[in-house]
């Protein structure tokens, strides 16, 4: 029997959940539980330290199947509480050695964590990605004019130049469309952040990502936000921009920096 630690999925206000989500944890043999201290409950499950200690963990992070399984379990547990409250999500593979260590952390950071939970209460994160869907590219100019005509180098170069200008123009158009989109959605959100666009290999799309944004939206404005995104998606389609909406997410991107978050 090996030593166990506590894997922490996220933190919620005490009383927000009647019980822990009835779901398998990152170690399927062990249930998800709550550990409360003061006004905060941590959503946790036990894990074997011989698998989750620093060295073995490092090795396992090379195993993408394991990383995916763990990440999805982590998300499923947090997703299960979204209807009841907004959790402060922990980063993947946050493990405390024992109950005492976890309780000490909750105690020491109680004030800041409670403030963050209050601030995030009634909000959720939404992701909007924009992709540039180019029109069918124009056929490359033939080095020559009309059939039978003498090849004209000048005409060829002029055509190439025109195409380059058109491409530059299209790029500026896309940038402007993204800016309008982000402005419109930011206006419906409590906070917004722009991330680096994902590469096509990672996004799994063969069209380039031109916007990767996240928005913190009040639950009361949820319908307005998703409907506006759909409207903007229809409006932007003729301009060569396709949108993808994801969510709702626990507010991974909007935990205040004061409690160790990204904001």
């Amino acid at each position, binding site marked *: 029997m090996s030593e166990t630690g506590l894997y922490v999925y996220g933190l919620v206000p005490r009383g927000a959940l009647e019980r822990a989500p009835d779901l398998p944890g990152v170690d399927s043999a062990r249930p998800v539980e709550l550990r409360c201290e003061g006004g905060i409950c941590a959503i946790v499950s036990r894990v074997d330290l011989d698998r989750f200690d620093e060295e073995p963990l490092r090795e396992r992070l090379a195993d993408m199947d394991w990383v995916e399984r763990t990440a999805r379990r982590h998300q499923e547990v947090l997703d299960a509480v979204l209807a009841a409250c907004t959790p402060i999500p922990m980063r993947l593979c*946050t493990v405390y050695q024992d109950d005492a260590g976890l309780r000490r952390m909750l105690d020491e950071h109680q004030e800041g964590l409670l403030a963050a939970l209050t601030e995030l209460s009634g909000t959720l994160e939404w992701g909007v990605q924009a992709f540039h869907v180019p029109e069918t590219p124009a056929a490359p100019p033939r080095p020559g004019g009309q059939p039978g005509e003498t090849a004209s180098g000048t005409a060829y170069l002029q055509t190439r130049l025109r195409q380059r200008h058109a491409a530059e123009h299209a790029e500026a158009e896309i940038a402007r469309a993204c800016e309008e989109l982000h402005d419109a959605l930011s206006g419906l959100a409590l906070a917004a952040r722009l991330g680096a666009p994902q590469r096509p*290999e990672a996004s799994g799309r063969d069209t380039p990502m031109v916007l990767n944004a996240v928005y913190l939206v009040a639950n009361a404005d949820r319908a307005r936000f998703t409907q506006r995104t759909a409207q903007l998606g229809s409006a932007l389609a003729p301009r060569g921009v396709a949108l993808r909406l994801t969510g709702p997410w626990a507010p991974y991107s909007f935990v205040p920096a004061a409690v160790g978050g990204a904001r």
Partner: protein
Amino acid sequence: MSAVTVADRDVALIDLLDRLLQGGVVIQGQITLCAADIDLVALDLRVVVSAIDRLAAPK
């Protein structure tokens, strides 16, 4: 419906890892381990490699 795809529960791994490895809370101090110091660039590369592998070997 429209030009917007709602991915909802079918979340791409990359979107999830973006959040779980770069977002969320890292509280220093009592914590024993966390993915905070993991080489994100290396992991990102692995995600990409894995995505390519999947494309190359469709089920």
